[in-house]
């Protein structure tokens, strides 16, 4: 995995581009890491709250169903009557959104309309107090339920988002950034290689030129020697020859 790199042509331009990408990836990584930490903190808080709410709910629901048993004891079966006389909800749930580090969490609010409600006269002759108490207890129970629902939804969504963020963080940390770094190293090494090749080539060209120049000089010296030997040229004249005048170097063009 670590050997992986992007398939780019090793040029200086690509090196610059890749370096920009590396910087981007690093910034992204640190940002996501911070987001993930913020979410995790929030997650822990919610987790604690859920635990409390669940324990509370167990208690409250037990109370609630028990108060219903009390109603059954003193009033008898009133379920049908209550069901029919309930026309308007006195307990409503309002949903809103909460923003936690860019994650939209739905939050539910219980909206209880105060007042005795529609079946306030139920159990008028017997057990009315128990009925009203059961109603109050159940209202409390449903409030707890709504609270718990809100927390639980937040929990699920946060869990998802945290997993997603962590996945991204890890991908950046262990895949994307090493790969970009590899790419940069690769480009650098390729460029170095190219530099070395170029240098060697120049050296070679220069060496060849030097050889060639030496061979030409040797030829001239030989001719001059022949001429001296022939006597067509005096030895000292050869020695007093103006070298600068007769030797014309070729311009070196790279």
């Amino acid at each position: 995995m670590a050997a992986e790199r992007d398939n780019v042509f090793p040029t200086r331009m690509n090196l610059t581009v890749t370096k920009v990408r590396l910087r981007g990836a690093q910034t992204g990584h640190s940002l996501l890491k911070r987001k993930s930490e913020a979410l995790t903190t929030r997650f822990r808080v919610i987790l604690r709250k859920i635990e409390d709410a669940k324990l509370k709910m167990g208690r409250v629901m037990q109370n609630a169903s028990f108060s219903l048993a009390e109603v059954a004891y003193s009033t008898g079966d009133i379920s049908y009557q209550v069901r029919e006389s309930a026309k308007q909800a006195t307990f409503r749930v309002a949903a809103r959104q909460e923003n936690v580090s860019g994650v939209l969490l739905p939050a539910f609010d219980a909206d209880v309309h105060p007042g005795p409600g529609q079946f306030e006269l139920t159990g008028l002759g017997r057990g009315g107090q128990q009925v009203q108490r059961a109603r109050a207890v159940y209202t409390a129970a449903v409030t707890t339920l709504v609270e718990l629902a809100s927390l639980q939804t937040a929990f699920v969504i946060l869990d998802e988002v945290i997993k997603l963020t962590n996945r991204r963080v890890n991908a950046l940390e262990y895949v994307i950034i090493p790969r970009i770094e590899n790419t940069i190293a690769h480009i650098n090494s390729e460029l170095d290689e190219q530099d070395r090749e170029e240098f060697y080539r120049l050296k070679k060209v220069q060496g060849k030129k030097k050889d060639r120049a030496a061979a030409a000089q040797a030829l001239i010296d030989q001719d001059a020697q022949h001429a001296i030997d022939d006597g067509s040229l005096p030895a000292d004249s050869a020695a007093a020859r103006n070298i600068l005048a007769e030797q014309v170097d070729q311009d070196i063009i790279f």
Partner: protein
Amino acid sequence: MNEIYFNVDAGYLEGVVRGYRDGLITAPQYLNLTQCETMDDLRLQLATTDYGAFLQNEPSPISTSTLVARCTDALVAEFQYLQQNAAEPISRFLDYITYGYMIDNVILLITGTLHERDTHDLLDKCHPLGLFDSMPALCVASTVQELYSTVMVDSPLAGYFRECLSAEDLNELNIEIIRNTLYKAYLEDFYAYCQGLGEPTASVMGEILRFEADRRTVNITINSFGTELSKDDRTRLYPRLGNMYPEAQTRLARADDMDQVKAILEQYSEYKSMIVGVSLHAPADGDGRGAQSLEDRFFGKEVQLNKDAFEQQFHYGVFYSWLRLKEQEIRNVVWIAECISQQQKDKVGSYTAIY
């Protein structure tokens, strides 16, 4: 002189009812019931009581609702046996007892009709003791108007309806007010009937019914605090009988809070002891049964009165008393069952033991 001829018609039935009374669950049995850990244990304990036969064929994890249903079946079976063997005037007395259940059933059907439900389903929910012949016919009526004009006049409750309600009232009044109005008329009628039966039925039943009337009066007063029920309407729901009629009733009608009710009740020796140590304010939090409520005291007093009815012979009150005791017993059993199934064993003791 009643005593001479009493056994001609009622001797057998009285014997039966006293036998039923001996079948009521006793205090040691209640203790055994409260010791149960599971519903199956409870069922095992109940197998030795009168309910045993009715619980026999239920599949094993028994719910409290089935328990209620089966116990009620047991009650109904015993009561119907009495009814089948009764001759005038006991049969009439027994019919009177069932009128109270009829009122509940009719109210149930009216509720269904008002909300345009299919009332056939409701027939199953009706209390079996309150069924009467034209009951299924009630389901035919689709509007309250029809219900009133065609069907209600044939029912035994027709008199109560005619006296205090018009067809328009059925549509407009709160169903609870209708129920209480009917019940008030029923109580008054029943009381008058019992007084007509002569001693000792008159005195025995009189005491029980007067207490019942007082209890309703107090309950209606307490339960109407903070509701839309006006004081005039409240007064109209009070039965016109009872130990507190008329003097204390007029004062209760004007009462605004619990303390005033308490002050009024304290003037009556029979109720003074009841309200001592009772928290009249309904606690808002869940565990309201820690202290005995007024309702519990009323239940206790009712049981006491009904037990007293068995101390005398040659009167019809035993039938009524037995039924009330049996009902209380079913409530107790169900209460214990609820406590067991909901694992609230600390509150299991707040039933009202009979014997």
